[in-house]
């Protein structure tokens, strides 16, 4: 009885994710070329991709004639949906804090990203610390609660930061955003940043050895008091164990190389270098380490360490065999990563497919979720975007976005729903005005002698 009830619940769960067929679109699969055809979606997954497909009975048909279908866009670097500040700037190593604890499902940036075709994003801690907070990817399930945003089963990460940003707190007199009233916080130089990371992993290694020894003895049947859990070192221990990805904010070639060598010494891997604007200078070393690179298409000159940034960075790194993605780090840029990918074609001649991969499959690989998302393949999550025109261009606009086979954004509905929303807003404003008038009949805004 009980079991049957649970089974019924499970059967009900995918109801929202109905069977959908997107027909006659130009389907850019990323992994299996581009075809004129259709995609069948069942239970939130891609069930079939082909030039001709059978439309299952009762399926909702979306006409994709003259439209383009691509995998949901993945942003490997974002700070949206994180409530309040994303920098715990008081310490140089802040691995004890976690983005998961501050997810805000009501951040309008989620909906806006969705409207730009983004279905998944890596939500990162800020760059104030050499070792920052824990991170995780989310899906843009607008309307769901915080817990439901989390990309289930995805490997969590941790943010590292090199260069000017983590230096800033060490130099209260200098630079944009520097705190002028607080005491200097170590480190203040790139040398100090290396040391901070080494010190942390020195500790983490000892901590791990302590736990390994304990676990070995317990396995031998001994009864022991476990070592004290250290919330700062725990995520670093996971890094050493390969259970947590390192996403390292970086700009200059020297600091990128430095972190690779530190990681080599301590036996862990850098999963991605983020921003990595001078990655093209040390592409060989990044490739040899096996790290991915997530960069801007063409941002430059906003600070000294961004002055050697070149828009050919993505192309050059890709040529050296690095898995490259294009990220936003910005709630606005996030909304047109499709055309950012177009820039990889312009600057450095990346092929159409490889450019599209830089905002779909490659970030999926970097986040270890490419078994689930990043391309249009049977069995993968039905995270899909319909564009009205060739998507790697600013002439294209998003028409529909599906996540797990559910339509989360529909431009037609969005536009046609605006008058109703406007009317509702006006009603609320009018009501508030009436309330105010009733409460304070004599009060006029701007009237002298109001409240001194």
């Amino acid at each position, binding site marked *: 009885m009980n079991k049957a009830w649970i089974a019924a619940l499970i059967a009900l769960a995918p109801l929202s994710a109905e069977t959908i067929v997107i027909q006659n679109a130009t389907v850019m699969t990323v992994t299996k070329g581009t075809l004129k055809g259709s995609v069948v979606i069942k239970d939130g997954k891609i069930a079939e991709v082909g030039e001709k497909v059978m439309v299952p009975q009762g399926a909702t048909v979306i006409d994709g004639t003259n439209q383009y279908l691509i995998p949901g866009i993945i942003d490997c670097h974002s700070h949206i949906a994180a409530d309040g500040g994303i920098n715990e700037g008081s310490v140089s190593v802040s691995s004890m804090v976690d983005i998961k604890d501050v997810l805000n499902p009501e951040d309008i940036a989620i909906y806006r990203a969705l409207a730009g075709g983004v279905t998944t994003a890596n939500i990162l801690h800020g760059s104030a610390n050499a070792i920052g907070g824990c991170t995780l990817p989310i899906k843009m399930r607008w309307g769901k609660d915080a817990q439901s945003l989390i990309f289930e089963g995805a490997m969590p990460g941790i943010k590292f930061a090199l260069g000017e940003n983590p230096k800033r707190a060490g130099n209260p007199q200098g630079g944009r955003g520097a705190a002028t009233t607080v005491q200097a916080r170590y480190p203040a130089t790139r040398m100090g940043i290396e040391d901070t990371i080494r010190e942390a992993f020195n500790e983490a290694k000892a901590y791990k050895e302590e736990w390994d020894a304990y676990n070995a003895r317990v396995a031998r049947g001994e009864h022991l008091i476990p070592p004290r859990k250290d919330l700062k070192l725990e995520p670093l221990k996971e890094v050493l164990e390969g259970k947590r990805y390192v996403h390292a904010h970086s700009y200059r070639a020297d600091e990128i190389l430095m972190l690779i060598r530190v990681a080599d010494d301590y036996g862990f891997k850098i999963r991605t270098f983020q921003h990595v604007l001078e990655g093209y200078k040390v592409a*060989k070393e990044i490739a040899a380490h096996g790290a991915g690179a997530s960069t801007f298409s063409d941002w430059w000159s906003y600070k000294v360490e961004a*002055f050697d940034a070149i828009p050919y960075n993505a192309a050059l790194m890709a040529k050296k065999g690095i898995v490259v993605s294009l990220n936003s780090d910005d709630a*606005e840029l996030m909304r047109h990563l499709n055309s950012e990918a177009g820039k990889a074609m312009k600057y450095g001649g990346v092929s159409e497919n490889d450019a599209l991969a830089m905002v779909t499959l490659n970030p999926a690989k970097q986040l270890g979720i490419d078994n689930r998302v990043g391309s249009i393949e049977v069995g993968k999550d039905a995270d899909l975007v319909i564009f009205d025109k060739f998507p790697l261009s*600013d002439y294209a606009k998003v028409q529909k976005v599906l996540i797990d086979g559910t339509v989360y954004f529909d431009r037609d509905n*969005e536009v046609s729903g605006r008058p109703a929303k406007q009317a509702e807003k006006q009603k609320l404003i009018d009501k508030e005005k009436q309330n105010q008038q009733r409460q304070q009949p004599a009060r006029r805004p701007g009237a002298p002698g109001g*409240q001194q």
Partner: protein
Amino acid sequence: MKRFGLLMACAAAAFAASGETVLIRNADVYPVTGAPMKGVSVLIQDGKIADIGPKIVPAKGIRIVEAKGLRVYPGMLDSGTELGLSEISGVRETVDTGELGEFMPQLRALVAVNPESEHFPVVRVNGITSAMIFPSSGGGGGGGGGGRFGGGERQIISGQAALIHTDGWTWEDMEINRSAALHLIFPSIAGRGGRGGGAPVPENVAEMLGLGAATGYTQARRTYEQQIAKLGDFFDDARKYQKARGAHVPGFQRDLKFEAMIPVLERKVPVAITASRASTIHDAIAFAEKQNIQIVILQPRELGKAAAELKAKNIPVVLGRVLALPENEDDPYDGAFTLPAEAYKAGVKFAFGTFTNEFVRDLPYQAATAVAFGLPYDEALKAVTINAAQIWGAADRLGSVEKGKVADLVVTDGDLLEIQTQVKRLYIAGKEVALTNKQTRLYEKYSERQ
């Protein structure tokens, strides 16, 4: 192959002196002011477009550029930049926008232009051949430039904006019009003209939160009114000065601030007014009427009711970045994307400005976004060429491919506004300019690394 092309461009630039006669042959010419012409030639002579037509017989010895399958467009004009004035926006020493002082009409952006700025070659290769440069980008948010370091946050009149070419040995070389506009950051209740000024806390909310009047609407309104009054006084004083100057009053003393105001009062130079909200635009228009000055509105974030007014009074607008977030949380997600279409439908004349140096090269893509969201393509093209030239009083020289105009030309392999289009050749005032910059050099250098 690509590298070879770059070398060729370098070589070409080396011997293409200004005044050289060049025939661009068999190109598809997009004049912007007229219908495209397929397979025609463009003759460049003495820095000008000397002729356009299907059958131009080249004089002996002139250089011939075969352009079959390529397109010729007028160079683009970005109507709002800090080019030459700001190099690394985060480093004070490299930024010369946003001077101290509230009323500074005598300041000239042109004289602070560093012709060697790395930004010029970077924006050139994407086809931007001229730009308006502002002494302050209008303060406030959005990664905007001016006002971060100097007294810019308190500026009202920031100085004179100049129209320049993006190439030249000196700022005098680059000059098209050293005083194309006077820049005024119109006071507003929601902070300053730029975005992100931070709306004041509504009075009732302030009361609820137990905040004093200092943070409330009343105070913001009072500050605003004081600023408007000050601005009015400054103009009135300038007018008195103008009168005294004309009357040759004995003991008359020259005042550089008021001298700078005279061309404005004589309606020879427009005032470019940064005004974000519809209500601010409305106030700015009322101010302009009262002062009898010519104005251009900069960086509106909404038009709303002001659109009809702008149209009725024939006031042009420079729209800021199209690729921008909506102003308010509950605005439509595409509010900034659709603003150009809205301006067009209202009959408001407009151009585009990017308002930070690092986005200047994306000017054509901003225009393309506007097309995706309802702006007719031809209008987008005009907004980065002829309309911009008209707004800044340079349409007799710039903004289209027409006989007699300055030869600012972009030769491309496709649609000018499309990201994937490559610029193949570039002419500024008739001189071929190399399609190289710091970034292409680094690209070349590190392409060699094994």
